[in-house]
């Protein structure tokens, strides 16, 4: 780098209006780019963190999710008695037979009903989910019509306070607690007693059986055993994989949409940078001639203009990222297509996204500045000095 960086930077500063418009365009593109990646990241993080690596979810073969699944009582008790299930301090097996159904509850913001997951839980359900903590009130007494609700539900739906009553299935359900499940999908669930819920909804079958592995490395063995048992038409998945699979369609949709959008948008921003850089070259022809006469090589000129354009991209990238980082304050709730139920997740800014955004903005700058920089470096000295 022979021509000082300050030359490139000060030239950007000299053309403040043009520079800020160009940077503004790039910042918007990077904002959209980062926002979509953050959304996909947030969704995936939420669903992946929902699972634990040593937990196994058993559902009916091909059911895809707990909502579609059904496991009858006989099958459920076969699973319950499998060897390899962890035993807790009280000497009890870490296994829960659960039922998952959807109910429609009115949202606070729109008063429109939205689907919510109700999970009928067993004695061990809470212990199986390390991420779930009761933040207010208490757990329901087993065999009662008491329920606890997730933090996101409390925030987004009507009647979300301890002591209030939800009515569904021709029964009143008293909210006795609110649980905090962090960034996981459980925050968007309502939990009640499995057997009472089955009675209420006249269900004969559980939806899933969840258990903790005594030894996580034995997963394949147990999976093999469950899936080859002719009495069971069930499949076992690690809880982490189960939730990752659920987020796949949505995350893929977001990624495809986001990437194709940003590619198209970035064309606009690259054109903006190109216009700016061509004008920068045109305005400084005599300067370029002088620098060449002083003994600077073509590649020095090329580098100086490319640097200028890279700076444009970089500043645009950082500006876009700063605005995108404020998105972390927002929570998005939308229907998860895999379960047809509401799921709340937030924008998540990971280091990877930061790098990708900055790299992306540099590429935009480089693409926009390359042709003008080449034109600058190719000028004939004598003609350039005459300002042609």
């Amino acid at each position: 780098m022979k021509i000082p960086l300050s030359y490139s930077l000060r030239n950007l500063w000299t053309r403040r209006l043009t520079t800020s418009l160009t940077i503004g365009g790039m910042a918007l593109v990077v904002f959209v780019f980062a926002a979509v990646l953050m959304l996909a990241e947030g969704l995936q993080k939420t669903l992946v963190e929902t699972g634990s690596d040593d937990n196994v979810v058993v559902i009916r073969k091909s059911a895809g999710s707990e909502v579609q699944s059904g496991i009858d009582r006989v099958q459920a008790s076969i699973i319950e008695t499998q060897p390899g299930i962890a035993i807790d301090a009280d000497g009890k097996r870490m296994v829960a037979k659960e039922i998952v159904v959807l109910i429609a509850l009115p949202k606070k913001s729109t008063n429109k009903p939205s689907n919510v997951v109700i999970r009928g839980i067993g004695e061990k359900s809470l212990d199986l989910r390390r991420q779930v903590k009761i933040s207010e009130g208490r757990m329901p007494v087993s065999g009662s019509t008491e329920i606890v609700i997730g933090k996101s539900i409390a925030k987004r739906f009507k009647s979300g306070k301890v002591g209030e009553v939800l009515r569904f299935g021709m029964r009143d359900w008293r909210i006795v607690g609110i649980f905090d499940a962090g960034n996981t999908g459980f925050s968007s669930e309502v939990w009640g007693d499995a057997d009472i819920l089955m009675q209420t909804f006249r269900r004969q079958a559980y939806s899933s059986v969840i258990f903790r592995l005594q030894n996580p490395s034995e997963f394949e063995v147990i999976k093999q055993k469950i899936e080859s048992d002719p009495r069971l038409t069930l499949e076992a998945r690690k809880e982490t994989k189960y939730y990752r699979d659920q987020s796949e369609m949505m995350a893929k949709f977001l990624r495809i949409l986001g990437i194709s959008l940003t590619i198209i948008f970035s064309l606009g921003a690259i054109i903006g940078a190109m216009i700016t850089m061509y004008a920068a070259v045109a305005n400084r022809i005599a300067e370029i001639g002088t620098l060449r006469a002083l003994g600077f090589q073509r590649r020095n000129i090329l580098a100086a203009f490319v640097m200028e354009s890279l700076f444009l991209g970089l500043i645009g990238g950082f500006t876009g990222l700063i605005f995108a980082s404020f998105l972390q304050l927002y929570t998005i709730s939308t229907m998860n297509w895999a379960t047809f139920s509401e799921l709340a997740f937030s924008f998540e800014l990971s280091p990877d996204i930061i790098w990708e955004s900055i790299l992306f903005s540099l590429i935009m700058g480089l693409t926009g500045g390359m042709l003008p920089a080449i034109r600058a470096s190719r000028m004939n000295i004598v003609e350039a000095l005459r300002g042609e």
Partner: protein
Amino acid sequence: MNSENNIVEIRNLSKSYHRGSLILPVLNNISLDIKEGEFLALMGPSGSGKTTLLNLIAGIDKADSGSIKVKSVEITTLSESELAEWRASNVGFIFQFYNLIPVLTAFENVELPLLLSKLSKKERREHVEMALKVVNLSDRMDHRPGQLSGGQQQRVAIARAIVTDPAILVADEPTGDLDRTSAEDILNLMEQLVVELNKTIIMVTHDPRAAKKAHHIKFLDKGILNARPQIDL
């Protein structure tokens, strides 16, 4: 003519421009010797080829045929990037419109050619301060060109031209954009460079007053070099 004293030796130099299918001869078989420490003015009407001759000596344009030796180096055979390196250490430029970089301060403008040398930052600072002192602008080194008068800008440009201690200085209408007093100053400064620092200056000019300052005057007309004007200027 003692060739050991010659800093520039030009032999049978020809150059023509192509405008579409038209070929316009500019320099026609020119030979010229310039001695070390000489202050030479090139005069001639517009289009006579004087700027082209200057550009060729300075190594920013290519001749069609002939040879140019500067300090015994045949510059017509140098490649483009060799030529650039050669210019950086052997030629100083002074332009009619100063051609300072507007976003850089006077100091940084003068420092610019030194960035191509291997000098340390401290050495560069010393050289720049010295050059600015020669042109008597030490108090303005942090000003940008826009904050300086025309005469001051031209003095910065001269400092930039001498900071690498080149053997020859080429000046194209150095007083063309200046009022009479400033022009006087600049010409005195250039004379001082020749007399005190033993620089060789080749100056293209229209201005008879500027030419008078020079030690020799050569006249170019229709591509041919003469010792006196063919027509009244």
